[in-house]
Every structure is written in structure tokens, then in C-alpha cells.
């Protein structure tokens, strides 16, 4: 069943309806609740904004960042410096006078918050450029260091920040309306972004960076963008905090603050927006509500004295229970949707809507996506040429002086014993390795040393020996990620729900569905790729590669682990897609039936050196090949 399509008008109406309800609730809260409850409501909004921004960075893009306190500090200080009046600033900087231009700038609250967000985003970008090359825990440590540097800078830049004295008397602009307005905007932007193909791309990077690169994704750029957007909203959260509690100092922004935000994101579920929202509410309320355990409890006959710190003990225990029994957090990666209750009801009533009628598209019709690389067959006789290409790892020569020319439109094979360097050649062609010698030409142009995502853009796609799908994404989303490389919308367009990007996404979904149908995967479109059976994962990987609209397809052991029937199907599939998609295919395969059956030309590699090449018959009878790879038994068998 295809993924549910939602009409944009309906969706907008739903969002506006929810926003209207929220506004009513806020108006009610403002009139009927006491300032204490309002304060907690305000904190909830800010905590959710912060958790969402961290979730975007960590949960959705998979970058372990501990720099949130730093971004918040920047947002808070910039905003505070903007909203204070020059006269007030004059009296407050008692150690060293405040310097120009900070002494004279004054902005309204809204532009001040934006300024705080933008400065935090700039800092985010600045740190992202050098640091994002690190991964995993190293990134965590580097960002933690960054936020400490920010704090030390603020402490010592007394003429700007008033040093450790901090800033007090910041006007309390952060009302319910502003905080929830910003929360709505954050939610709207993040949800829209994640629901678009940009969201698929970010999650793809989280699931498998290498596979994402072969899909033509500039992972570095996408990560930097996600990091910057996250930093922007963290800065906004910091600015709102400053104007809520009216005083800030550098000590506030210690790494403990980061951990508070991290706690909400983790407890809610990394990779779940509703998780952050739910956890933001629960944790903020719980922290205050638990104060009752610190008060004296008078049971009449016994007086239990209040123990300060008790609530943190209970709170920590609750968190530990969450981590022990629900490691993935309250929501995991799932989302609560508007229609969740409705869907539950439907399941209960067993009146699920009939699936939409399946339309029979031929694959030609599927080609609605613009072809950026409209290659004319025959333009180049050889689509791919390796000229004395070689790769050395330290003292080991994996590939040496490899010359090969693949004719446009053919299916070529690559065989050789294990460790002969076949996959290394694939990695050279697809840009994962930069050859230590020689050159690689694609369609006549030199692509030596191009990064994987640019190679993909030129029109080369590949699959992997050990399947590398994006396991948490659905089959459909996997294919959509492939479409990203030809996509026209900019990354920020979906965040603002621009009609052009929405139309493009709808078209892409349709094309992706047709592609899945072509490979017989349309029934599994909505299933998580990681849960598909092996054979279907193989086919999905091919579908995903085709989505990048390649001219040249590299298949790394496509038949590995398949039974004879599946292998037979695969051979037909390979020949069909070559025809339908006007491709040239190069494949690595150990199954001689496949290689001999589909390939028109074969290269044999041993110890990194090409020992033979030619049509299947010649290879089959080449004594060198028989000795090195095929073996006498094969000859008898054949």
C-alpha cells in the first residue's frame, strides 16, 4: 500500500486549527492561572524548543553534539545586549564601561531574538566547518569544548558582557504569547523540514553516511546545515530564557545546561518530535511538582521533615527507569500524529479504507524527473576509462596499472579471487578512494579524485557488497533519498512549505512509487528497509541507485546469498534495467552463471593486476584465469 498522501490544504487547515486552539488555551491560561503556573508553562515552551533543536542535530542527523549551552549563551547575550536601553547599560557595567557599539545598540524584542538566533547559527556554522569532520564521541567532546570556550570568552570579555557579574534587569519580554509563538514556529519549521525529502536525507545520513554519499548527498553540507539550524533554534531558546528569568551570567551556561536539554531529548526519544514535546512537558512539570517531597509532610501523627535534594533523587531514579525499561525513550522514533486516535479507532472498527487502485505505469512513464545527464549513446564509445589507475595503502598495493575501457551501453563483469582488489576499483570509480596513480575518465571527463557525491551527480551509482540501505527509513524513503541529487528545491524551502517544493516532493513520491513498482517492491513501500527480506533489500538497493538517474551502474555482488530462482530473476532484471534505463552496468560477481550469462566483456583481477580481459568465451578458456580463479573443476563443470 502506498504511503498515505496528505492534501496540503487539509494539512494547513489542521495546523491553523491546532494553532487556534492553542491560542485559546493561552488566553485562558493568562486569565485564570497564577504566575507560578504561567512560569512553568513558559519553561515548558522553551524546553521544548531547545529539545527540538538538539533532536534535529542528534536524533535526526545523528551528530552527537554537546554544545547546546554555548549556542544558548550566544543567543541569550546577544538578545540581552540588544533589548537593554543604552542608559541602563551605562549603569550596569560597573567594572569596565561597556564599549561601542554594544553600548548604543537597541532593538525590539522580536528582532533581538532573531539576532540572537542568527549569531548562534553563525557560531554553529563556524564550529561545524572544522569539527563535523569528526564523528561520534569525538564530535561530542569537540562541541563540549566549544561551549566551554564560549563560556570562558563571555567571562573574560567584560567590556561587552559585564564578565562574571552577568547582566540583570533584562526586561521580561518572554510572555506566553512569544514563547508559544516561537514554539509553534519551531515545530512548524522542523516538522515541515523533516517531512520533506530534506528530512529523509538527514535521516539517511544518520543511518549510513557512506551510503548517503553514494546517493549523491553532500553529507558534510547537509550536516552543517542541520547543525546550523539546530544552533539557530538553540540561540532562540537562550534568548527567550534570558528574557524570562531576566538575569544571565556565564555560570548559567555550564555543560549541566546542555545535559538538561539532552535529558529531555533522550527521555522523549531521539528521532521523535512528539517525544521531545511530551518529555519537555513531563520533565519540566515533574521537576517543579516533585518539590512536594522536599516539604515537610504532616501526616498528623508523624511529621516527616523535608529533605532538600530529595526531588533530584526521585527525578534521577525516574530517568534511570526510563533508560532501563525504555532505552529508546518515551516515544522511540515513533510520532504521535493528528490522526493517531482516528487510526486506532479504524483499526478497532476494522473499516480500513480500500487501497487506491493500482495504476499500471510503464517505466518510461516513470521518467518524469528531469534528466540532467542526458547522454546520447554513441557520443563516447567508452563511457568509463581507467588509465593506469592504481591504489596503494601504505606498503600494500591493492590495484596497480589498471587500464580498462567500458563500452557505452554494455554489461561488463569484474571477477577475481577474494582480495584481488575488485571492490577497491569500485571505490576508486565511485570516489571513496582517490587513486594514488593514474586517471579515471567518465564520459570523456576526468573524474579522478572527485568526492562520492559529485561522482554520483555525474551519473555513476553503485550498490554495496554488504547491503547498505537506510534501515530505519521506509523503502519509499530510501528511493526518495536517491532522488535528492536531482532535486531542485533548496533545503530551507520545505521548512517554509513553499508550494514549488511541495509540488516537487509530490512528483518525486509518485516517481519513487513507480520505480518501486517496476522492481516489484510497491507492496513494501511503507515498510522499514531494515525489516525487508534479503532478496528485496538487494532489489531495493538497486531501486535506490536507479533513483539517482545514473548513466553507469556499479553492482557489487548483486547475486550474493540468492537462491538459483532469485539469481535467475536477478539476471533478467539486470538486463531489463539496462535496456529500460539506458544504462551501462559494471558488476562484481562470484556466481559464474550470472557473469557469463549477462556480461559482454569481463575483466579478471588478481593481486590488483588485470590478468585478462575479453568476452566470456575467451575468459572461460584462458589458462591464466583458470589457474588463478576459475579452477580446473569449473572447467569440468562447464
Amino acid at each position, binding site marked *: 500500500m502506498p504511503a498515505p498522501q496528505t492534501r496540503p490544504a487539509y494539512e494547513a487547515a489542521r495546523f491553523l486549527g491546532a494553532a487556534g486552539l492553542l491560542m485559546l488555551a493561552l488566553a485562558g491560561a493568562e486569565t485564570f492561572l*497564577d*504566575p*507560578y*503556573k504561567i*512560569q*512553568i508553562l513558559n*519553561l515548558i515552551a522553551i524546553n521544548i524548543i531547545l529539545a527540538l533543536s538538539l533532536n534535529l542535530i542528534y536524533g535526526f542527523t545523528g551528530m552527537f553534539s554537546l554544545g547546546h549551552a554555548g549556542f544558548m549563551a550566544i543567543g541569550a547575550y546577544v538578545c540581552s545586549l540588544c533589548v537593554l536601553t543604552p542608559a541602563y547599560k551605562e*549603569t*550596569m557595567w*560597573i*567594572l569596565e564601561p561597556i564599549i561601542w557599539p554594544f553600548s548604543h545598540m537597541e532593538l525590539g524584542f522580536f528582532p533581538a531574538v532573531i539576532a540572537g538566533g542568527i549569531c548562534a547559527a553563525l557560531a554553529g556554522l563556524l564550529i561545524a566547518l572544522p569539527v563535523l569532520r569528526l564523528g561520534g564521541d569525538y564530535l561530542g567532546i569537540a562541541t563540549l569544548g566549544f561551549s566551554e570556550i564560549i563560556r*570562558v570568552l563571555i*567571562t*573574560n570579555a*567584560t567590556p561587552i558582557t559585564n*564578565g*562574571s*557579574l*552577568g547582566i*540583570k*534587569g533584562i526586561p*521580561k519580554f518572554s510572555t506566553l504569547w512569544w514563547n508559544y509563538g516561537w514554539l509553534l514556529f519551531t515545530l512548524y519549521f522542523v516538522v515541515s523540514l523533516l517531512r520533506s525529502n530534506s528530512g529523509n536525507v538527514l535521516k539517511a545520513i544518520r543511518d549510513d553516511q557512506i551510503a548517503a554519499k553514494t546517493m549523491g548527498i553532500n553529507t558534510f553540507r547537509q550536516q552543517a546545515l542541520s547543525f546550523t539550524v539546530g544552533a539557530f533554534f538553540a540561540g532562540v531558546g537562550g534568548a527567550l*530564557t534570558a528574557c*524570562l*528569568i*531576566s*538575569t*544571565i*551570567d*556565564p*555560570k*548559567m551556561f555550564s555543560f549541566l545546561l546542555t545535559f538538561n536539554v539532552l535529558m529531555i531529548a533522550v527521555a522523549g526519544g531521539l528521532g521523535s518530535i512528539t517525544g521531545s514535546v511530551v518529555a519537555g512537558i513531563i520533565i519540566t512539570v515533574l521537576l*517543579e511538582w516533585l*518539590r512536594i517531597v*522536599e*516539604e515537610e509532610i*504532616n*501526616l*498528623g*501523627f508523624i511529621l516527616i521533615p*523535608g529533605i*532538600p*535534594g530529595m526531588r*533530584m533523587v526521585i527525578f534521577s531514579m525516574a530517568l534511570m527507569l526510563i533508560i532501563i525499561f525504555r532505552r529508546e525513550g518515551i516515544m522511540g522514533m515513533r510520532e504521535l500524529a493528528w490522526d493517531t486516535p482516528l487510526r486506532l479507532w479504524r483499526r478497532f472498527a476494522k473499516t480500513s479504507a480500500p487501497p487506491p487502485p493500482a495504476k499500471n505505469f510503464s517505466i518510461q512513464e516513470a521518467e518524469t524527473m528531469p534528466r540532467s545527464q542526458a547522454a546520447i549513446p554513441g557520443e563516447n564509445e567508452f563511457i568509463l576509462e581507467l588509465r593506469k589507475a592504481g591504489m596503494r595503502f601504505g606498503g600494500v598495493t591493492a590495484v596497480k596499472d589498471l587500464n580498462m575501457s567500458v563500452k557505452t551501453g554494455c554489461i561488463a563483469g569484474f571477477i577475481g579471487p577474494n582480495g584481488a582488489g575488485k571492490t577497491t576499483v569500485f571505490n576508486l570509480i565511485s570516489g571513496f578512494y582517490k587513486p594514488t596513480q593514474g586517471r579515471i575518465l567518465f564520459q570523456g571527463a576526468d573524474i579522478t579524485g572527485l568526492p562520492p557525491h559529485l561522482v554520483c551527480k555525474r551519473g555513476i551509482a553503485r550498490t554495496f557488497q554488504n547491503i547498505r540501505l537506510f534501515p530505519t527509513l521506509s523503502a519509499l524513503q530510501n528511493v526518495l533519498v536517491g532522488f535528492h541529487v536531482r532535486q531542485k528545491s533548496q533545503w530551507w524551502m520545505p521548512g517554509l512549505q513553499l508550494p514549488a517544493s511541495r509540488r516537487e516532493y509530490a512528483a518525486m513520491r509518485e516517481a519513487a512509487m513507480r520505480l518501486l513498482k517496476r522492481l516489484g517492491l510497491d507492496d513494501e513501500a511503507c515498510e522499514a528497509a531494515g525489516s525487508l527480506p534479503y532478496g528485496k533489500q538487494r532489489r531495493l538497493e538497486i531501486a535506490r541507485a536507479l533513483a539517482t538517474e545514473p548513466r553507469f551502474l556499479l553492482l557489487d555482488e548483486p547475486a550474493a546469498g540468492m537462491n538459483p530462482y532469485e539469481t535467475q530473476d536477478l539476471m533478467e532484471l539486470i538486463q531489463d534495467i539496462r535496456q529500460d534505463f539506458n544504462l551501462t552496468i559494471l558488476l562484481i560477481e562470484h556466481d559464474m552463471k550470472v557473469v557469463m550469462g549477462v556480461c559482454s566483456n569481463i575483466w579478471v583481477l588478481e593481486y590488483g593486476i588485470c590478468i585478462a580481459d575479453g568476452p566470456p568465451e575467451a575468459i572461460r578458456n584462458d589458462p591464466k584465469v583458470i589457474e588463478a580463479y576459475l579452477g580446473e573443476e569449473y572447467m569440468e563443470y562447464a
Partner: protein
Amino acid sequence: MLKKLCASACVLLLSCSLAQAAEPVKFGVYLPLTGQNAFGGQLELEGIQMAHKEEGRVLGREVQLMVVDNKSDKTEAANAVTRLTARDKVVGILGTYGSSLAMAGGEVAETAQTPIIATSATNPLVTTGKKYHFRVCFIDPYQGAGAAEYALQELKATKAAILKDVASDYAVGLASFFERSFTKQGGAVVANLSYSSGDQDFTAQLTQINSLNPDVLFIPAYFAEGGIIMKQARELGAKFRIMGGDAMDNPDTVSIAKEAAEGFLHTTFPYDPGMTKMNETAQKFTEQWRKTYPNKDPNVNAALGYTTYMLLIDAIKRAGTADDREAITKAIGETKNFPAVTGLLSINASHDAEMPIGIIEIRSGKRVYLGEVTPK
């Protein structure tokens, strides 16, 4: 069985609440009872609780303490005061230790128009421009001036060096006021060096200071770092005297620095259990404390906590109402010569307490109260 117990508990609870029907007067208390400032907050709370035990009623009504922990955290401090003013509707608030916490809490009390008396928040910014914020302690410029004056007059120092915690608002403020007073009165500050909270090694700064050969080193530090600084300074063979501020007034100062604390001087609030000429209130306080907490020495933080409570009671009595916050605020502001543990206490125009500065010297590991200075 369980049901019965619950039922009887309910009945008891109900009867209790009925017995207290004459509405109690609610005092809010917000202090750092956990977190990095807990040592001060706990002592001040004990002082307040002791005062509450001593004078549990005002204008014929019972006083109820609503104690809220602010975790040494600004957001929590703002939350705590919001809770006290909005939910508990307290008539006045006592606390807090720590100026940055007081600034966060004070802002909330100001909008809620509830009087608030800080125990030991010494930063001048705490009460500036505030109508409802008072304190029973002196402020850092005054203390800095006192330390400078003592160094110049009594120690005959002409060259001073400063080593301050740049991450602490308290240290930065106090250091700057010491420097201003010291240079204004003819002294010279030869070095003004910094470190950051949590540092363990101060030898680099101390070697530089040593080479400049000052007469006195002023360290407006907390005892944890202050103790180590003294130790390392003596290990480097420093001959100069070392002076500190009221944050060094803690038994741990000696236990960390050991012999290196010998001759260390620090300013503090004019109360010490070992002082020779103790006023009547201080005597009463000390006796009471020894009875209530036999295993603990009274300390100035406890005395300040005690004082805030007694001052609020006094103001309510003078205002003649325990409900009108405006009248109580006015009464607090008009406090003149109130007999406090720290001497006769008056609240001045900037809502700070005027009192002399006590000087303590460590001699053979014991704190000796040398006397008082009143800076001009």
C-alpha cells in the same frame, strides 16, 4: 487494615488543618540547599529555623515557613520565588545566599510586590533600583574598602597584589572595589591576576606576584581555592600577608590550608562566636545555637539567616499588619537601630544594612576576632 490507617490519617490531617484555622502568617524561604552553594544555604536555613522556633508567632498568629530549595541555579531561583509569591502567597521572603541567585529571585518578587530580605547577597546590583529588595549584609564596595583600609592603616601596606577568580561575580566585584579604595588612599596595586573557579594550580600567578614583592595579597576567593592559594604561596616562600573576604569565613579554610593559614586575615560580618565584646542579641543567639545544635559552631551565615527572620517579624510588628505587603515593605525600609546579632542594624537608602566590618585573623589554627573597621 490499610484502609483504616488511611482513613484515620485523613481524619487526623483534617483535624490538624481545622486546629490551625486562625490563618498562619506565611514566610517564604528560598536558599541554595543543594548544589555548589549548599554549605552557605544550609547554615542560613538553620539560623532561620532557630529564629522561627524562638519567635513562632507574630501579632497573635502563627508563622509558617515555606522553604524552597533553589539548587544554586538561577532558573530555579526564579521558579522558587514565583512559587512562593503566586502559589503560597507569602507575606515576605527570606534569602538568598549568592548574589546571582538573588538577582533572579528579586526580579520576580519585584513584580509580585512582595518584600524580600537577602541574607548574604553582597553584590551592589542586587538592590539597585528595587523597591521590595533589602538585605541584612553589607555590600562588596564597602567590604572592599574596609579590607583596603585595614591593609593600609593596620598592616602599613603600600604595595598590594590581587589574585581573583574571574568566573565569580563576587570575586570580580570585590577585587575591583578593593583596588579602587587601595589606590585612592595612596597605595599601589602591583599585580591584578586571575584564575577560574575549580583551578588547582596557582603557582604561575603566585611566582609572578612573589617577584613583585607586595606587602599584601588580596584574594577575594571561596575557601576551596583560597586554601590552596595560601598553601602554594607559602610553599613558594612568599613573605607577604594574605587577606580575603567574607567567603573565606569557613572552618574549611584552615582545614585545607593547615599551617599556611597562619596569619591569614579576612573581612567578615561583625559576628563571631569567639569575639570578646559580644552584644546582647549575639550572646542570646550564641547560647540558643549551642543549645539547638550542640555539635556545630555558630557561624555568621547562620547569624544572618537568624537576623532576616527577626527583622521581618519586627517590621510586621511595627507595621501592625501581617497582610499588607506595602506596609511591611515600608516598615522594613524604615528599620533604624534594630538590635541584630551583627550589632545595631539600620537599613539605608539603597536598602543595604549599615554595619562595621569585622576582621578575623587565623592564629594557631584558630579564628581570632581582631575587631572592627568602619570605612569612610
